[in-house]
């Protein structure tokens, strides 16, 4: 493979006229559903084009067609004016389209340099692989995107953010004209995000057309030049970012207006202490964390990546071991320190990682909902299914959980509906304290406000809600009091009305 990427844009004059990639009338059906219907997308070289939409809108189908993972059923794809037929990921790469998926597709046992030249190692005269050239070329590539990764490092040992850079370097090695970033920031720290944005801007400056797939509004406003919104497999709008406001963008995405993302129905919090945590420490993270949560309040915990929010959440419900400190739920001490004691006392965790810690994906909705309260529906160890189904059906109705039936496997529900089932799991059991960790992770904008309303309702019904979040609007919109963590310590607790973004961030930095 020639490494001619050091001299880009020789035909830049043509590039600015002819789109880097033009998709016209793209259609894709899966039996029973139209995933994409007559979708257009035009990418200009040197521009960052955001692709937005809720889950199921067709974003991923569209980029998978670009990547050659799926074939299209209708429409045409042109690269710089020439119609191309992308039948496989290899074709797509050859045409100069590089998609960086969320699940990074690198071989973790190989070095960075080996990964970059995976599709074609430069060889010496004898046919042996020219390692020296590989390393030198990788270093040159990183230099071009202004990011430094050791080309000889084992890829698996790098954080996700740097593996993304390796993927981007691979794109350059293939002389990609189009680079697609699929939800690239979902597991990055704020610092890493700004580094990534710098690199993306450099790609654009090199004349590469960048597609930025995301549902995070603030990011899109920060980085995109143009926004295309898809909804239900159809093209809704393509506008310059300057023509959008937060509201118009949300409206395009969900097809209706959301007047108030944080509807507050509940009254003021009570004074009764439902949860009291004293000098809690764990082996790996937490240091002397002490706080109280009252019945009827939402206590929001903020912190940057690695501050220890999830660790705290798992420790106070008895899931992860602690080294010292006490946890008291409704006046009774959580001892022995395990979840069965915790649940008995009335504290439970709504996990941030639904898939691996919350859902029983293969099992039906009703079994997922009743898991924690099954004993209440049993006599002599036998489950009274009629009673159980009725109780679950009540929650499905009350929370408007969208599912074709109680027998549907829960993995087929949308994120928002899955979350509602998991909240039902706890409500059916009856808790005093619910710890919610990133309650809207992976949930569509439209469903988010419903989850917020549910959390509001939980507090309104007298539960103490301890909410871990990294989303500032969520924190400010929902919490009565705000606690901030930094590197395993609690650095500030303040009432909502005294909190400002600045105060919170200062405490989060430590």
């Amino acid at each position, binding site marked *: 493979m020639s490494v001619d990427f050091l001299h880009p844009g020789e035909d830049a004059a043509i590039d600015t006229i002819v789109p880097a990639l033009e998709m016209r009338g793209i259609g894709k059906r*899966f*039996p*029973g*559903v139209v*995933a994409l219907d007559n979708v257009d997308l035009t990418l200009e070289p040197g521009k960052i084009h955001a692709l937005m939409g809720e*889950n*199921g809108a067709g974003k991923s*189908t569209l980029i998978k067609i670009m990547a050659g993972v799926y074939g299209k059923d209708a429409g045409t794809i042109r690269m710089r004016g020439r119609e191309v037929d992308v039948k496989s990921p290899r074709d797509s790469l050859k045409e100069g389209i590089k998609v960086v998926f969320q699940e990074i597709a690198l071989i973790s046992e190989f070095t960075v340099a080996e990964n970059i030249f995976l599709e074609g190692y430069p060889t010496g005269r004898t046919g042996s692989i020219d390692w020296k050239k590989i390393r030198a070329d990788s270093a040159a590539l990183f230099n071009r995107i202004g990011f430094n990764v050791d080309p000889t490092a084992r890829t698996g040992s790098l954080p996700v953010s740097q593996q993304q850079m390796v993927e981007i370097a691979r794109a350059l090695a293939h002389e990609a004209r189009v680079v697609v970033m699929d939800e690239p920031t979902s597991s990055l720290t704020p610092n890493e995000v700004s580094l990534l944005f710098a690199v993306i801007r450099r790609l654009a400056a090199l004349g590469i057309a960048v597609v930025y797939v995301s549902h995070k509004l603030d990011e899109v406003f920060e980085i995109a030049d143009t926004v295309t919104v898809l909804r239900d497999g159809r093209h809704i709008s393509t506008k310059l970012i300057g023509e959008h406001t937060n509201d118009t963008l949300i409206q395009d995405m969900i097809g209706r207006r959301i007047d108030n993302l944080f509807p507050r129905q509940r009254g003021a919090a009570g004074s009764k202490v439902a949860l009291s945590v004293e000098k809690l420490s764990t082996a790996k993270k937490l240091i002397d964390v002490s706080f109280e949560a009252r019945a009827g309040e939402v206590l929001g915990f903020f912190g940057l990546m690695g501050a220890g929010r999830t660790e705290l959440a798992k420790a106070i*419900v008895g*899931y992860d071991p602690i080294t010292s400190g006490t946890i008291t739920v409704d006046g009774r001490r959580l001892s022995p320190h*395990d*979840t*069965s004691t*915790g*649940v*008995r006392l009335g504290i*439970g*965790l709504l*996990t941030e990682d639904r898939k*691996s*810690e*919350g*859902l*029983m*994906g*293969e*099992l039906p909705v009703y*079994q997922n909902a009743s*898991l*924690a309260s*099954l*004993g209440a529906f*049993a006599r002599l*160890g*036998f*489950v009274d299914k009629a009673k159980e189904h009725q109780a679950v059906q009540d929650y499905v109705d009350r929370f408007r959980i969208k599912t*074709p*039936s109680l*027998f*549907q*496997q829960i993995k*087929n*529900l*949308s994120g928002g509906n899955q979350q509602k089932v998991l909240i039902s*799991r706890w409500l059916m*059991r009856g808790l005093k304290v619910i710890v919610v960790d990133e309650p809207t992770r992976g949930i569509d904008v439209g469903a988010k406000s419903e989850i917020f309303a549910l959390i509001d309702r939980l507090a309104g019904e007298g539960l103490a809600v301890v909410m871990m979040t990294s989303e500032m609007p969520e924190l400010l919109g929902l919490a009565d009091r705000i606690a901030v963590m930094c590197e395993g310590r609690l650095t500030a607790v303040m009432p909502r009305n005294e909190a400002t973004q600045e105060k919170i961030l200062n405490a989060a930095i430590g």
Partner: protein
Amino acid sequence: MSELTHASAQKRLIGGQLLGSSQLVLGAILAVLCIAISIAAPQFYSEANIIAILRQCALVLIVASGMTMLIITAEVDLSVGASLAFVGCIGMAVLNSTHSLALGMLAALAFAGGVGLFNGLVVTRLRVNSLIATIGTMMMLQGGVYLFTREAVQNHNQLTSFTDLGAGYVGAVPVPVIIAALIFVVAYVTLRFTTLGRYLYAVGANERAVRLSGLRSERLKLLAFVGTGLCVGVAGMILSSLMNAGQPTAGRGFELTVIAAVILGGTSLLGGRGSLFGTLLGVLVLKVIDNGIIILGWNQDLQMVVPGIVIILATYLDIIRNNANVR
């Protein structure tokens, strides 16, 4: 995308509410086998032969009932074959020295249950993968049984009640078949209708979610291991009754037959999915093949070869069926 999955799930519900559709495939295989063998060899359909098949199914079904529960929790026990042989020797030895079937039975159950407990503790406490842990136990038992006895433990007192355990009849039905049916029904009811059964599926589907819900997932797994062990205890005594001796060499490869039947029945090694009814069909298919090979006078070595082919084929059909549902 969501509409897509909804549609397919509804289809699946219509087809599979009563019978999981992997059972449909298996039922069809069983029917085809029976018909084909009957055409080639009409004596297949004689009462004597059917009873013989059922008797051969009994031992496997007893242990497979426990194993189904265990595999549903996403664990597996490879030591059941080795344990089966050891249990027979111990039961027979205790029977010889005490002249009491009850004590012999008790010793067999205690030993086999103990093996299950040991496996369970190694897996849940030491967190050793169950495949590895139970291979270790299997080797220990295979060697250990020779430390216990170098040759078969002969039956010295010929208690009729003991002989009946393996060779007796109630009406036309062999006693082992009745015992197997009882154990099967207990296991079936447990899995289908009790909270314990639901928790076993839940542990297999997502152990962490179960733990976060305040349930003791490790105890549930331990219980499944011990349950499997107790089934081996019963099967071991029946086997030694049938052979009129405790044979240290018995039970080689038995664990594979059992696991094959369970997997053939559609129980997922990943846990959370499976049914005892499927296991029953799986056992029947394997034993009908065995029987057919004998009746047709084929080379006996095919008794290993054919089931191997059937397992791969049935699993492949299951994958095709799943894919058809997803599309």
